[in-house]
């Protein structure tokens, strides 16, 4: 370090002498390199000014006094910049550490919230959920009941990032503790609502949809807690129809009765569920309309449900210049028999 410092100080002096005599660009390029080496070795601005003063005094011993004082003055002015520089450096290191910590947490979350897509004859399921940042505040889950029905949950915690992700684990564990029996969706949402209401801060809430699909009958029984509506695609008419039930988001009021409704789907029909990360997509200042989502889905109808959701995601990812504003989740369920 001492050697490096001395070496660079000498080089600085040489370049300075060259520049004072010839004012050539080569010397200026040289000092740029020296300056970069200084930065790399955390040499502070006041030390560079000091090197400058020393070099100048050696080159011009009879420098006039007021000029010398002015340089001392400059050195003094640099001290605070040096401090600021060190603080930023330190904060940067902390940020890197924090980032890697979050990425470990995100990996844990992925493992923790993993759900198995049910493999059922006559049913083609595609699902995608991408966080805007590292951790996901959206959640979906499939529950396979003993009677053959499938529970489908989709939820979105307010906000995004770490707090949303922490909150989501709560939903996951509550769902896990359900009996493997067919349960009316309003009962499930009612239970979750109490859990969330008891365990979150006042401005925290979760929107959720829970449905139970019967592969035998093609019937979906569902209930919504303030969640984005779902859409039913009728293949015969090539038409999307909104479906939902009125109901307050989870976590706001202790006693909420949720409603139940049902639809029946036929061969090639689809159920489309999403979070507001899809509907609130923005293209510059323009918000997308739900019809745009339908149009994109229509373009990929020939693909499998999984390829379809992936293509739709790619479309909106491109639209937002690859910078998701919110966690994005989309689920498509298609009846194939």
């Amino acid at each position, binding site marked *: 370090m001492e050697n490096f410092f001395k070496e660079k100080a000498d080089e600085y002096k040489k370049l300075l002498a060259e520049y004072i005599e010839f004012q050539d660009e080569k010397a200026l390029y040289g000092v740029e390199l020296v300056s970069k080496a200084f930065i790399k070795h955390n040499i502070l601005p006041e030390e560079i000014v000091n090197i400058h003063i020393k070099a100048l005094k050696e080159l011009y011993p009879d420098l006039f006094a007021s000029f010398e004082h002015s340089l001392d003055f400059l050195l003094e002015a640099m001290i605070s910049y040096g401090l600021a520089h060190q603080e930023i450096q330190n904060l940067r290191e902390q940020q890197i550490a924090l980032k890697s910590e979050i990425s470990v947490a995100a990996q844990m979350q992925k493992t923790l919230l993993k759900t198995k897509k049910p493999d059922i004859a006559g049913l083609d399921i595609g699902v995608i959920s991408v966080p805007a940042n590292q951790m996901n505040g959206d959640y979906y889950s499939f529950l396979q009941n003993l009677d053959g029905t499938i529970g489908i949950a989709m939820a*979105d915690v*307010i*906000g*995004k990032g770490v707090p949303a992700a922490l909150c989501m684990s709560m939903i996951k564990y509550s769902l896990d503790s359900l009996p493997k029996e067919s349960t009316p969706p309003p009962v499930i949402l009612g239970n979750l609502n109490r859990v969330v209401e008891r365990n979150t*801060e*006042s*401005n*925290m*809430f979760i*929107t959720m949809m829970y449905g139970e699909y019967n592969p035998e009958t093609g019937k979906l029984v569902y209930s919504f*807690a*303030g*969640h*984005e*509506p779902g859409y039913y695609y009728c293949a015969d008419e090539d038409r999307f129809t909104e479906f*939902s039930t*009125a*109901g*307050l*988001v989870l976590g*706001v*009021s202790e006693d909420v009765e949720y409603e139940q409704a049902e639809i029946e789907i036929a061969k090639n029909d689809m159920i489309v569920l999403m979070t*507001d990360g899809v509907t*609130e997509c923005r293209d510059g200042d323009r*918000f997308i309309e739900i019809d745009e989502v339908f149009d994109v889905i229509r373009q990929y109808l020939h693909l499998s449900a999984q390829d379809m959701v992936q293509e739709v995601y790619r479309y909106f990812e491109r639209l937002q210049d690859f910078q998701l504003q*919110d966690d994005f989740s989309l689920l498509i369920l298609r009846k194939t028999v």
Partner: protein
Amino acid sequence: MNLEITLTEEGNQSIITLAGEIDAYTAPDLKETFGIVTKKAGQEVIVDLEHVTYMDSTGLGLFIGALKSTKENDSELKLVNLQDRVYRLFQITGLDEIMDIKAAIRGGNE
């Protein structure tokens, strides 16, 4: 994007006029404002959202927090002049059922 917050106090009425976007970045200031005005018992807090063009779920959370605070402190919360897109959020989430919301009152003086 910015959010402009104007607070006018008239007797036991606090009128908060908002302009801009309510999201995770602009939320902290509004949260602070809500925190102060909803704590006074008997206070009627009116939030004018006529010039709010966008709100995300963090914004909704603020209104839920404010609503809970008014219940605890015996004050009142009213939302007026919501644009369609913002109003839709309150509808989807079922919050329009538990909050005093007057959607668009276009033009004219009240």
